[in-house]
């Protein structure tokens, strides 16, 4: 088997995913092209050597539809020889795109592949692609569909995370993100988004709120009470988990991932391809895995995906220096820490999606870059990225510096 190496990783800043967000005026194709252009230019790539461009995208409709990866590559001026396709593993799409890129190289069928992702949540809102899971009555019934916020609240209830626990986690995410930003830790990967004149539209993450305190979060109302009680999702959750008396609704906008716009791209290649092009590898992909888990609780996948990838690699949790566990909701990370007995000091050390936002299709690729940057900064060796995924899945990627 050929080893797959990471040669570089870039990302745009994350802009607030509303109409008053800085990136709202930037099309998703241009967002993706920003990342692709930066990756090409700073590595002086002849894009005729790129076998494939794979981008995660969770709402692939409208201007994000019809294979945004190929279109963004063409728009970025990539050689027509660079193919492209989009993938959708919901919130892990960006990481899955990277895993597939690595897999193409490991299988010996490609030499240089870009994995990444894009999501303009301000322009193509969540749920735009509809789908059968929530709406098709026969599907929803058989699978006990509940929305993710209810799932996160189920986790909090079952593992006993009270409101102050999830809020405290959120405050820490804000603190870490602000500290990392102020210290310039994101500088290596971050590329500014520019308008057609070359003027900067946004060059830093827009949503970090270091002033957040447990007291200020206490004022926020839980977000999923109505869905739970009026529409009946709590009752459906109890049908699946009848040992619970009721769902404790603890999640809200302040302890859940923010809605943002952004894109990321990561360059993967074989050692031979890197040598040929004069590129220095930064890390080797040790393994990756995706798993399916119970879909109603939905968001417990990260621990299982982590266990799977570690087992295949013959490693233990203790072998991992740093983790990035996507902060979809506070309870997801808290449960990951408990399930694998990991110290919070090794997880999301520079904050996460609660502070900076979660551009659905891009996040996985973004935090892969964040992890690699931090391993280098601390001169550590091994890192693991994992995300919880809609419909009950988890995806993980294990990397090791070279």
């Amino acid at each position, binding site marked *: 088997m050929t080893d797959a190496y990471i040669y570089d990783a870039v990302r745009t800043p994350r802009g607030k995913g509303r109409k008053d967000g800085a990136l709202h005026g930037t099309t998703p194709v241009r967002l993706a092209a920003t990342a692709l252009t930066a990756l090409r230019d700073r590595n002086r790539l002849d894009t005729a050597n790129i076998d494939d461009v794979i981008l995660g995208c969770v709402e692939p409709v409208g201007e994000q539809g019809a294979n945004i990866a190929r279109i963004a590559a063409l728009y970025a001026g990539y050689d027509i020889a660079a193919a492209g396709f989009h993938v959708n593993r919901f919130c892990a799409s960006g990481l899955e795109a990277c895993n597939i890129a690595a897999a193409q190289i490991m299988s010996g069928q490609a030499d240089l592949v870009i994995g990444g992702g894009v999501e303009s949540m301000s322009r193509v809102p969540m749920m735009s692609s509809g789908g059968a899971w929530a*709406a098709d*009555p026969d599907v929803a019934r058989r699978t006990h569909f509940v929305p993710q916020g209810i799932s996160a609240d189920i986790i909090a209830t079952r593992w006993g995370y009270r409101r102050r626990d999830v809020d405290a986690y959120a405050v820490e995410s804000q603190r870490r993100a602000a500290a990392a930003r102020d210290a310039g830790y994101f500088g290596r990967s971050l590329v500014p988004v520019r308008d057609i004149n070359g003027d900067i539209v946004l060059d830093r993450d827009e949503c970090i709120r270091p002033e957040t305190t447990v007291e200020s979060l206490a004022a926020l109302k839980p977000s999923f009470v109505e869905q739970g009680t009026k529409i009946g999702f*709590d*009752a459906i959750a109890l049908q699946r988990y*009848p040992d619970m008396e009721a769902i404790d609704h603890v999640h809200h906008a302040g302890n859940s991932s923010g809605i943002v716009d952004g894109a990321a791209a990561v360059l993967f290649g074989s050692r031979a391809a890197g040598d040929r092009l004069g590129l220095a590898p930064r890390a080797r992909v040790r393994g990756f895995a995706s798993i399916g888990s119970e879909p109603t609780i939905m968001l417990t996948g990260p621990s299982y995906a982590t266990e799977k990838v570690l087992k295949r690699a013959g490693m233990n949790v203790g072998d991992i220096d740093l983790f990035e566990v996507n902060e979809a909701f506070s309870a997801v990370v808290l449960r990951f820490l408990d399930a694998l007995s990991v110290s919070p000091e090794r997880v999301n050390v520079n904050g996460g999606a609660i502070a900076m936002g979660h551009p659905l299709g891009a996040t996985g690729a973004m935090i892969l870059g964040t992890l690699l940057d931090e391993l280098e900064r601390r001169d550590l060796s091994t890192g693991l990225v994992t995300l919880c995924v809609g419909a009950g899945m988890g995806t993980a990627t294990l990397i090791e510096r070279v």
Partner: protein
Amino acid sequence: MNANIVRYSVDTEGIATLAIDCPGRALNVLNREALAAIYAAIARAIADPAAKAILLASDKEDFIAGADLDMVLAITDAAELKAATLELHRYLRALETCGKPVAVAINGSALGGGYELCLACHYRVAGNRPSALIGLPEVTLGLLPGGGGTQRLPRLIGIRAALPLLLEGKKLKPAEAHKAGLVHEVVAAGNEREAARAWLRGRIGQETLQPWDIKGYKLPGGPVQSPAGFETFYAGSAMTLAKTAGNYPAPHYILSCVYEGLQTDFDTGCRTEVAYFAAAAMTPEAKAMMRTLFFHMNQVNSLARRPAEVPRRKFSRVGVLGAGMMGSGVAYAQAMAGIDTVLLDTTLEAAEHGKSHTRRLLDTRVHKGYMSAETRDAALTRIYPTTRYADLDGCDLVIEAVFEDRGVKADVTRQAEAVLTPDAIFASNTSTLPIGSLAEVSIRPQRFIGLHFFSPVDKMPLVEVIVGAKTSPETLAQAMDYVRAIRKTPVVVNDSRGFYTSRVFSTYVREGLMMLAEGVAPALIENAGKLAGMPVGPLAIADEIALDLADRVNRQTAADLGAAYVRTAAEDVTETMVNVCKRIGKKVGAGFYDYPAEGPKRLWSGLMRHFPSTAQQPALEQVQRRLLYIQSIEAVRCLEEDVIASACDADVGALLGWAFPVCHGGPIGHIQQLELPRFLAACRELAVSFGPRFTPPALLEKMAAAGESFYVA
């Protein structure tokens, strides 16, 4: 024969009238013969060059009551039902696409298949008869509209407006049906044919089609695949599952018919509906619901258990002793049925207070527009509050609803009997005391009977008619006549401890308490009860009944039964709650649950201390099985001991008395649904694990050995 069912005539204006009149029945019902006749008439009208327009009508008082459930229940092969339903669709489709204008005169109720026939017409006129109801109530019997109802109604009024009607099976009065868009026009009763003709006259010669067959048709309210459609089905699917807990397939199938069918052309949508309809009709749930809610309910209400030789008795004057909650409820039921009521209590104030209960209920009806002020006033004059036993003179029946105390009951019995004529009946509304023992003080025990009403009387349709050892057949027959006269449903029960309903229902509560003692998590017990289809969990019920009351009853039972009494862990739990925890139930805001001033009740956190949950919890299915099967076993024992006369009474009594899950048809219906050998095997297993109370009664073993079942289908 078919020619007699639909009268076909074409008038000089070219309007062909198809007048439906099923011979020998009070109502038009869509059975095989009627359908064949309607198909033939539709084909004839389409082909007849003299027929320029088509009018559907009924020669009965109502239009069509719906499909013949005997026919639906008898079909056990989905393919056969599909074929029959597809044929119906072909004719309805031919009718609405033939180009000739088609109108229907809805002279009375048009329900189910009857209204689906109307939906295939281009113009619907309803006569404004007070008794007329229009709608698609199939879901209430576990079915769905199979004659195009799920396809035409949403295309007519939009998905959002159609879904509640389809999912709840609500029947609308003509004016409401008009407002909802189900009919085009409402006219004075009797004028509907002429109004329909007038519309047809104006259309003769013009090609007439349904809105959905006209080019450029847009679904009102937007298509399935739109933000609005997504939201509707997102919420609709969840609300439905939250409500059914997966126990009732029909509402889910209805949603699927609309979701899937409204994304396709009309004919494909109809095929989708046919598939789901056949699937629904084949479910054990639909079969159980049709059997109990329709056939058995009709059987019980037609007084199948009434001694036939006794002449019917009319009740014009009835006395009620005790104007408390039960007594005043009975007075209300009687006043509504036009029976003069003597409402007697120890003080006039108390008797008047009892009457004011009826006034409150009637005021609400007037306020909601269900009743006129005149009718209310007339009903109120029928209740005569008093303190004097002499006023009971001339009563056909006296019902005592005083305290559950033998002394008090004996006293009122003696005083009333002193006034009553020899043929008058004396009834006790006791819920706990054996009728035979109460009749001991009676000077005419053959005219003494139990009438066990349920609370709240104005809402609960069941009355247990308790036959004492000395009660005469005449008394029983007439007491049943009385129950029907006040529009309630009587089930006949032979005198025994707990009668029928309390005896069987209490096994549900007791099983829940025993599980708590075993270490089953209280939330699991409660959820299992609710997810099994019971309205409330066993612990919540115990709180409502009150634990101190249960404790007193337990001690009384122990004293009465002596050596025969078998104490279970359930009694220990009750005793602990009362004596150790000092939590006696909802009435004091503290029982198994806490009852905070704001928000829903929550299980008391201290339960874990007194009844710690075991680490290994049973599967939900096992908890559900215990809670339901124990009721079925007890109902069989009641049959075995002749406490209740028939399986059909047992099922109807369970549905109306304690809201046993209707998807199973009743505790006996549930055995039928599971099939006896499987039920027996499960009970034997439960007996090994949890004790002899699950040992199958001999009756079941005997029936299984003989290959018998309780019901034919």
